[in-house]
């Protein structure tokens, strides 16, 4: 299922939750882990100076510095690296999203695993990249699914056994479904197909009566059955559900409720503008809020 995983990490505590998941998945499924880190963002035009993401100091990049950074990463993750894990450590200078995508282009992993944000956006060195967040850019452009762990993955105990697949019935969601099916089959997981009925006034234009809501829920369930059930029968355990509310909140609640250890969703926000970054698309909101890892599938 996962043979090659690209784990992009800040190698700081912000990525600790992601690291736990990354090393666990790689270990459980005998995948090769490419630990990838961007230690510095280029500064000063054509000078050799970068701003170190940890110390926020200006450093001159040379082989010694890069080796030192690799050693730091090796030390930071020492306890995970003991058990015969197959891994590489790669460091590259540049803007993180771009360099992660470049590495993915070169190594063609079947999963990109992103660590958490480096914290305070105002101070973060990575912010020097252009508009849009690292996550948005990668989710938009990556050719493989992108797994993000933002919060402590409370229900992630090791391995994957229970998947929530959130659908909005779009084409992109169909792609995400295929991926969720593949994971469920290969790793023998339970797959729970979930749709959240958006009853916020922004989506419906008016307050819906309870009868209308229930009518729409029935319709959505019918759609889920029509669209996915014939395939779901290939699995031992599956379920289908529709809840109403604010979509991203309902997905997070649902996944928590059924103890999912993975949420799979499609990413089809094509925009990377600032406004979207603040508001966020559903999947981005889910990533920020979920208590388990979230995989965003783009194509």
């Amino acid at each position, binding site marked *: 299922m996962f043979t090659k995983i690209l784990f992009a990490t800040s190698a700081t505590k912000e990525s600790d939750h992601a690291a736990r998941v990354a090393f666990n998945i790689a270990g459980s499924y005998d995948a090769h882990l490419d630990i990838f880190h961007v230690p510095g963002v*280029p*500064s*000063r*035009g*054509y*000078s*050799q*100076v970068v701003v170190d993401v940890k110390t926020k100091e200006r450093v*001159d990049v*040379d*082989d*010694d*510095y890069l080796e030192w950074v690799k050693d730091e990463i090796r030390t930071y993750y020492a306890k995970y690296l003991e058990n015969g894990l197959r891994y590489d450590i790669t460091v590259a200078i*540049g*803007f993180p999203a*771009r360099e992660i*995508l470049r590495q993915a*282009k070169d190594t063609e992993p079947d999963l990109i695993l992103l660590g958490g944000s480096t914290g305070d956006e105002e101070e973060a060195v990575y912010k*020097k990249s*252009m*508009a849009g967040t690292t996550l948005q850019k990668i989710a938009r*452009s990556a050719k493989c699914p992108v797994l993000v762990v933002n919060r402590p993955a409370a229900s992630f105990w090791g391995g994957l056994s229970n998947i929530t697949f959130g659908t909005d019935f779009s084409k992109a969601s169909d792609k995400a479904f295929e991926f969720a099916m593949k994971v469920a089959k290969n790793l023998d997981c339970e797959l729970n197909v979930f749709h959240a009925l958006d009853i916020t006034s922004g989506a419906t234009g008016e307050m819906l009566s309870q009868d209308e809501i229930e009518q729409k829920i029935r319709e959505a369930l019918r759609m889920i059955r029509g669209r996915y059930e014939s395939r779901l029968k290939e699995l031992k355990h599956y379920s289908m559900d529709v809840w109403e509310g604010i979509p991203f909140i309902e997905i997070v609640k649902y996944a928590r409720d059924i103890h999912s250890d993975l949420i799979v969703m499609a990413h089809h926000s*094509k925009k990377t*503008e600032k406004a979207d970054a603040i508001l966020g698309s559903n999947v981005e909101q889910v990533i920020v809020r979920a208590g388990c890892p979230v995989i965003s599938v783009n*194509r």
Partner: protein
Amino acid sequence: MPEGKYCNKTPVNTPEEVNFLLSDTSGNQYYKEMKNLEVDSDLLWATIQKTLKSRLRTWLEICAHCGMCADSCFLYLVNDRDPKQVPAYKIQSTLGEIIKRKGKVDNAFMRHAMEVAWAQCTCCNRCGTYCPHGIDTGIMFGYLRGLLYQQGFVPWEMKIGAGMHRAYRAQMDVTNEDFVETFEWMVEENEEEYIGLTVPVDVENADIMYTVNAREVKHYPEDLAEAAILFHAAGENWTVPSEGWEQTSLAMFAGDWAACKMQVESVYAAMEKLKPKRMIGTECGHAHRATVIEGPYWAGRENGLPPVESIHYVEWLAEALREGKLKIDPSKRIRELVTMQDSCNYVRNQGLKNATREIMSHIVEPGYFVEMSPNKEHNFCCGGGGGFNGIGLFRKQRNKGLEKKRDQILATGAKLVLAPCHNCWDAIRDLEEEFKIGIRWSFLKPIIIKMLVLPDHMKPEE
């Protein structure tokens, strides 16, 4: 020890030599060795006799020391009007002195001259517009840099930059394969969103041959995608050369005239091979100066022009907007105070002030564009021109130099600064980092793409 391991008079020519020089972190050893570097006075004097032509001789001779140039120099202004920062003084006390002494100057003098040439002048040529005699100190400093380079008295990063051009025909270690591959990658990343997007490589007789800045390839290749999107949206028949695609010239900043020639000839060879109607370069100031304005002379072209008509990106943008090839959604125009940096290299030195303003009239809601003061050909250097941005040794002086631009921007009240020049873009980014005045900065391409009305054939099916 006259010639050092790192610091010497020999240019850097190969990737191995570039890497060797780079391995000396911060150029620490390089600058130590420079203290012992011998001045070859005979060579210096012979070179001057061969290359110092009547214009520069006259300028040095007729300078009336009137001081009119003083207030024109942003470095003089930000350094508390230090008399040592008066352009006339700066050049007379360096180049003038070398000539007076017939090249018999010592190591300490040359190191001082290096500091003046790279940390006290950005070759912005502003003083030249204010001198009653029309003396252009920037041009003379360009010449002095050549003499210093020949003698090995050149800042570490500049020697590396010039070496990159010699080794790669690009300002960074980007090979021709890297360039084409990266461009194709960027198109691939965007082709679902922009139907029909391609990068036509080495197409002969295209209307446009596009050239870039290697840093786009290396660090922000989005810029390549953006160029492709805009050409495609405008329905242009365009191409990029697989060789001769680098428009910039750090060799020009370094004073490495031989490398300048090598670099620009690679672009001209591409023009001659592909025979495009026009060449258009990216949003870069010095690249345009190097390839379009000065390059023909370096390459010894008798008509003083590149092999095909060559225009700056802003000229193409203005034209495309004017002719309706690119359509702007009026509701998406910029509706906040916005200012724009005039690049010395194509505004003061070539007079393209109207092109950028024409672009502003299309993309900014009337009333929101605020000019800096002064502006157009009178605008001040961004503070990082002429190589200043890249030199670690002179970082402190450079940061001081940014103060003028900071104050100009603050006075506009704008929080968004458009900078259609790589050097200016960098300097303005750095000044935000240094002074935290709360501004954003951008090239034109991404701004225009956001407000573009895509032709129907480019829209993806939903």
